[in-house]
Structures are given as C-alpha cells and as structure tokens.
C-alpha cells in the first residue's frame, strides 16, 4: 500500500485518529490567547451577573439621599448615582438584563435574518425580491415607531424588548448573508454537492451557511453592543426594563446629564458596556479564526 505521510510522521499518525473537529476547534481556539481572555472575561461576567444577589455590595435599588452623586470611594467603588444608589451594585444586577437582552435579541434576530438571507440569496427570483423588499422597508422603518407599535401591541416588558431589538437585526443579517450566498452558491463544491443529490435545503444549511458564518459571527459580536444600547432607548419609551431596575444602557442615558459634573455616573456603565462589547468582539474574532479550517 502506498502511504502519503512523510518520514517522521509515524508517531503523529497514531494520534491522527483522535483529531475530532471539536477538539481541533478547541485546540486552535485555545492558542488564541486574546480570545481566551475575552472568553474568560465574559464567563466571569455571566457568573457575576448570576451571583449578583450575593456579591453586589448594596441593594441596587437602595436610595441614600445623603450620598448623592458621590465619586468612587472605599464604600462605593464606582460611586453613587443621583439617588445615592451604588453604581457597582447596579452594574452587577444590570448585567443580567443587559446581557440577556443583548445576547438573546441578537441570536433571535440573527437567526431569522440568516435564514431569510440564505433563502433569498439561494433561491433568487421573486422570493429574493420579496424578502429583500421587506428588508428594505424594515431597514427604513424608524426604530422608535416600531417600538411604540410593539408596546402598543405587546405591552412593556423585558421580553418584548428582546423581540423589538431582534426585529431591528433581521434585515441587516438577511442582507449580509444574502450577499455572501450570492457568491458562494456559484462555488464548484456547491455544484458538487448538488451532483451528489443534496437537496436545496440541506445545500443551503450545510454548504452555503458555513461560508457565510465568518461575517455572521463578526456581526453578531458587534451587534450585541448595539443591542444593549438600543434596549436602553426602548426602555425610554416605556418598552424596556422599568425603573428602577438597573439596565446598563438606561444607566448610561440617565447619567448623560451628569457628564462634566459627575462623570462617573456614565463612566462605569459605559465601561461595563465597552468591556463587554470588546470581549464579545475579541471572542468573535477568535471563534471566527478557530472555525476557519485554513488557519492553524
């Protein structure tokens, strides 16, 4: 029998068999130290959010009118807000809402958008036109109007914010995926899959979708940040988390008027958002790179 491995491979060859895709992914991902760090940060954040009742130094809704807008101190690490509430505690509690809104809405909207984009790009013709024109309208449709509509129909509540924010994400993902699909569907390997007898649906999911994933991952990781901020603007029209429940975006917006006077009120929620978004993005890059079989 002819073999193909060169000399010196004999030892390695026995290990070849254990190189499963998951391990392979993990092996590559692990080597990306930035992404690992980002992943740990997010994990820590999720844990902190989950453990907020135990680790938050104060009740996030406890007012203290004697310590209004105090800067960071030993007692209040991140200072206090306009009601004398502890900002750090609010950030910890707020992580629960902000993270879940950010993540879930993007996953929901992204999922729907990716599906629509795939179908539009793959099928072409009138289906493409229909889906894309609907997306055009959704893109053009002002967010506030949509949100007001949602409050009117569904009423306020965090869950509905997720739907609201998700809807904004749909057309963007759809267009993104459609673009990539248009070029990917011409690939020879797609023809090859077709020649094997792969039906269209599977063809889209298995052979085209993975090719669009790098863009999708990148956009998901960016969109999470945008969604956290969007959620805040929705809570402003009465859709989102209701006062006084802490939510990062709302904290940021509320602190807007204290810029230049008590900057820490915006700074710390802003920092929390920034770090989270940064972590998601670096993690996204790491995922993207680790899923790319051509990169080692």
């Amino acid at each position, binding site marked *: 029998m002819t073999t*193909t491995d060169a000399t010196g491979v004999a030892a390695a060859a026995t290990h070849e068999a254990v190189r499963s895709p998951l391990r392979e992914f993990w092996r590559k991902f692990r080597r990306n130290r930035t992404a690992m760090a980002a992943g740990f940060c997010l994990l820590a954040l999720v844990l902190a959010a989950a453990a907020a009742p135990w680790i938050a130094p104060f009740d996030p809704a406890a007012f203290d009118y004697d310590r209004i807008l105090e800067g960071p101190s030993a007692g209040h690490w991140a200072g206090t807000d306009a009601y004398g509430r502890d900002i750090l505690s609010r950030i910890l509690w707020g992580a629960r809402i902000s993270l879940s809104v950010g993540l879930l809405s993007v996953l929901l909207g992204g999922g729907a958008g990716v599906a629509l984009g795939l179908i539009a790009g793959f099928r072409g013709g009138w289906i493409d036109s229909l889906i894309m024109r609907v997306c055009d309208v959704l893109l053009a449709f002002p967010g506030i109007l949509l949100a007001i509509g949602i409050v009117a129909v569904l009423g306020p509540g965090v869950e509905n914010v997720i739907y609201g924010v998700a809807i904004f994400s749909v057309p963007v993902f759809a267009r993104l995926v459609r673009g990539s699909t248009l070029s990917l569907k011409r690939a020879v390997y797609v023809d090859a899959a077709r020649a094997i007898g792969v039906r269209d649906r599977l063809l889209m999911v298995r052979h085209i979708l993975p090719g669009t994933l790098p863009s999708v991952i990148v956009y998901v990781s960016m969109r999470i940040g945008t969604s956290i901020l969007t959620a805040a603007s929705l809570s402003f029209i009465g859709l989102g988390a209701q006062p006084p429940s802490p939510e990062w975006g709302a904290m940021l917006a509320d602190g807007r008027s204290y810029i230049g006077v008590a900057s820490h009120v915006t700074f710390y929620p802003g920092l929390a958002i920034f770090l989270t978004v940064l972590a998601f993005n670096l993690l996204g890059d790491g995922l993207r790179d680790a899923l790319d079989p051509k990169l080692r």
Partner: protein
Amino acid sequence: MRGAAAAAKAVDAAPALLSVEGLSVAFDGEHGPVRVVDDVSFTVAPGETVAIVGESGSGKSVTSLSLMRLVDYAGGRIVGGRIRFKGRDGRERDLATPPAESLTDMRGNDIAMVFQEPMTSLNPVFTIGDQIAEAVMLHQGLDRKAARDEALRMLEKVRIPEPARLLDRHPHQLSGGMRQRVMIAMALSCRPSLLIADEPTTALDVTIQAQILRLIRLLQDEMGMGVIFITHDMGVVAEVADRVVVMWRGRKVEEGTVERIFQAPQHPYTKALLSAVPKLGALRGQDLPVRFPLLVVDDAKAEAAPPAPPPVQDTVRAADAPLLEVRDLTTRFDVRKGIFGSLKARVHAVEKVSFAVRPGETLALVGESGCGKSTTGRTIMGLQSATSGTIRFDGVDTATLDSNGQAKLKEKIQYIFQDPFASLNPRMTVGFSVAEPMLVHDYVPTSKPGLSRRRAVEERVAELLTQVGLKPEHARRYPHEFSGGQRQRICIARALACDPKLIIADEAVAALDVSIQAQIVNLLMELQAKRGLSYLFISHDMAVVERVSHRVAVMYLGQIVELGPRRAVFENPQHPYTRRLMAAVPIADPSRRTRDLRLLTGEIPSPIRSIGDEPAVQPLVPVGEDHFVARHAVGGDF
C-alpha cells in the same frame, strides 16, 4: 537535437542555476511539525529540464512551492536545507532563509510557476487579459496597451481559440484545459530564468500538450531558461526531461539522466512506476478492456503482482436497454460584454450530441481541450441547463423529474469533477465529504451488518479511503491539507460511496502517478465487473482510455465526430482529428523524442459564434460495425 549526453555535459559545464541542498519542509500538525519534504537535494542548470516524478503526495508540489517560498503562505515552513539560486544579476543567494515577503522581486522575475490546479489558481474576479497583462507589465515593463497585445500573443501561442475575445472573459467561463493554458501563458510571459511547471498539461489533450511542450522548449532554447517539470506522464518525461528526480514519501529516492532512469531504474519505486506506465497500443488486437498488471511497492520493496493474468473486462450487457441515453444535446453559453452588455455571441459548447451508455459499459469521451466534454457531463448532471435535447436515464427523461426525483437520480449517477480541489467543500472534513452521499441518500452500507448506521458509514468511509490509497485517519483532515492527486482520489472515493450505476469521471485520474493510477483504474474496472457499473470516462490520456473503455466517442468543437468500439477507433481512426490525436500521444521512451517539431500557428477553430451563425452538424454515418463518423470539415479535411 540535444542528446542526453549533451545535456549531461551542459550540466557539468554550466554552473547550477538552482541548487537545492537538503531541503526539508514541515507543516504544523496537531502534535508538532510534520515533515512532508525531507532532505531533498537536486540542481538545475540553465537551459536544463529536470523532471520530478513520484508518487502522488510525495512532496513534489510542496518542494516546488518552497523554491519560491510560497509554502510559507500555505502554513508550511522550511525547516532545513538551502535553496541557492543564481539570479539575473549573477548574484547567488539562499532563498531558504530570508522572510518570505522579501522575495517578491524574485518571484515571477527569476522564477515563475505553473500551478498544479489551474481551476483555483486564477483570480475569479479579474479577466484573463488583466491577469496575463499584469504579469507582462510587471516583468517586461510594457504599458497597459502593449501588455495586452503581448497577452494576446501569448494566448495565441498556447493555442487558445479566439484569444482576443478570451481576454475579456473570466476564469469561470473557461474549460479546465483553457485555464491551464492561461496559467502557462502567464508564467511564460514573465520570461523567468527558472520555470517550475507543476503538472502543466494534465488537462490538455495530447495535440495541445505537444504544442505546449514545444513552446516551453523554444523559450528555453531562446533564453536558457531552466525548467523543473513535475509530471506523472512518463511519456512527457521521456519527451522533455534531461534529468529525472524521483520522489517517494517526501524523499528523493533516485536521480539520473532520463535515459538512465528509463533504462536502468534502481529504486523499487522507480521500477514499479515504470512498469506501470500505460503504453498506447498495449491492447492492440484486443476487443475488450484489460486491467493493468500491478506491481505493489511496500516499504521500499517491489513485489510482483499476483501472477494471474489480468482479467478481461467483458461486462457490457448489450442486450439491455441503454442506461444513459443522450439525444441531440445542445448547450450554449451567452457571451456578453460588461455587466449591462448585450448579447454578442454564443459559445456552442455542446452541439447536437447523441450517444448512449449501456449497462456495464465504459464509454470514453475524448477530444480537444475546450471542446465541450465537461459541459456535456455537467449538463447530464443537471448542473447546467441544456439548450435543447433529451437525456434519459434508465429510460426516464430527466427533464420530466421534479426536484425530488432529480435528487434521487443522483444516487445512481455520480460525477467526478475535473477540478477536485474546488469540488470539495473547504469547510468540511474530507471524511464528511466522502460520507455525504451516503447520508443524503440514507444509504446503508450493506457490507457492514450489525453496526449502528453512524459506525457503518464511518467504516465505509475508511474502507473507501483505503481503496483509493489513502488512510482512514485522513478522513479528519480538510481538503487544503492534501496534495492534488490525493484530492482527486478523495473525489473518486466520494463517487463510489453509495454504489452508483453510472459514474461520469471527468479527468478523474489525471493527477495520479501511474502506479496509483493503475490501481485506481483497476479498482474502477473491478467494480464494473462486480456490480456492472457504467462509466462515462472523460480523459485526455489515450493510453488509459485504451485500457478502460469499451467504446470511444471523439468530440471536436462541441460535436461528436467519431464514435465506435475502442478497438475500431484506436486501430482504424476515421476522422482526421482522431488520427491527429493518436499520432500526438507521447511515447515513454526517451530515445524516440520528437521535440523539434515546429510550433503550430494560424487560425484555431473556435466554438464561439455570432448570433444566428449556427454551426453545421453532420450526421454520424456508419463506417463499420457500431462505428460512426461525422463526415464534415471540422477538425481537418477528409
């Protein structure tokens, strides 16, 4: 004629252009670096042609990529050795050590390369003209206009029809052989002092191949260009090489003048290789195809194949209804200019083609590069919509099938693409790609009773990979981690996965070294004997065609010009193009070289026609039993 002795002398006299010393190349594997080229040394003198032959996957391409340090961009690393190269300026430098980026000025200018896989090596978004002109502008210092003219001239030299029109077309609109010739034109237009040609003629029919070989020879003589020629075709080796380097499992196992290697091979692998070379005319007088006699090489020992004479392939069930019946199939492509461009002309890729494949039969489809073979195959597979004509499989008109039926049909017909790399999903492991047909068609491998379906499929994948000469653990790798020939075998394995009835094999064994080629061909024939498979075998390699086919169809400019039993077509070719084809097959014997023939020039017939200018299609008229020929002037006078 420059004899081998003269060449050998030239080597002694001239200082080496390139000298590779102890080159080792490694890729990063999971468990540290894996060496795929190990301690390889050879030299190339100016004007000399060194052929590198060897087993598929033995590191030939990696070696050549390392010479230009392109291997660095593919994730490889040079872990040892030196590459000393004497540049135009007469300065010698070691290419192995400086950072790969710093060698830009040398690439193209000093060393140019023709890549093994032309299909993926052309940039899909630029026109052919732009891509060649870019090389010309870079290395000959011409302006845009002049570069374009030069590009046109180069395309003419590689015998591409209507080169002027081709300049504005994009790679995906070209046939495999055309792309390969574009690659060659591009590399040659750099006017390098060393040309590395990695399997440059696999997709070319022998007539054009001969032309290309001559062209290279000509430039070589003109400029004293050194050539490294990597090929599996021993006929080509015998034709062009001064010296031969034989590689096996990452090492150089033998080196010598072409005569020495052919006459007195030392290493068992070389012996096995030469013994497996298919010779045209080997089956003269035989009606039926016969398998290759095999030499098995294992651990540097060559053993004779089982002594039993290779069985005769009497598998055609002529009485049964044809499995595939193609009638008056026509496929045309619109040629437009620019994205708003109006319809200017049409490519008449396939014109009124009719043939049938019987159960258990191998029908070979041969013909000039770009004559429409792949298009015929793709149209049959439904990957390309036909302009007109009918395709019946098992008596059913495929056009009448719904999408469900179409998908089901694919279980019975498998297609091996001319371009194995592009036809494998880069994001899927090879194992998955091979398993996919089984998963799609819920095919349960019957040979493995009692296993869970998943296990059964896995086992079957392992079995298939072994059958094509790969290892089961290769299943976990990705396509880009294989050599050209390995990928081709993966595609073959995939096609065999769920016991199809018909396989359309488009140049399916072109990238394999002859010993593996023989193995694969034998495998295919064995399956035919066992399961009554039919093949539509598209190939340029006449010697292989002779081995495998029951009948042969010869295509020219989109039409079938001759169709008949193999023996009749080979021994009594009727159409002028068939005759030319037979005559141009290179012979694996360095003492019978024909290298000094003149370059062909002049008009090349083209399938591109203006709107309304329909080509004349002559009916196939019988000239013998089952032997037909179209009597018209395409492809030469009667």
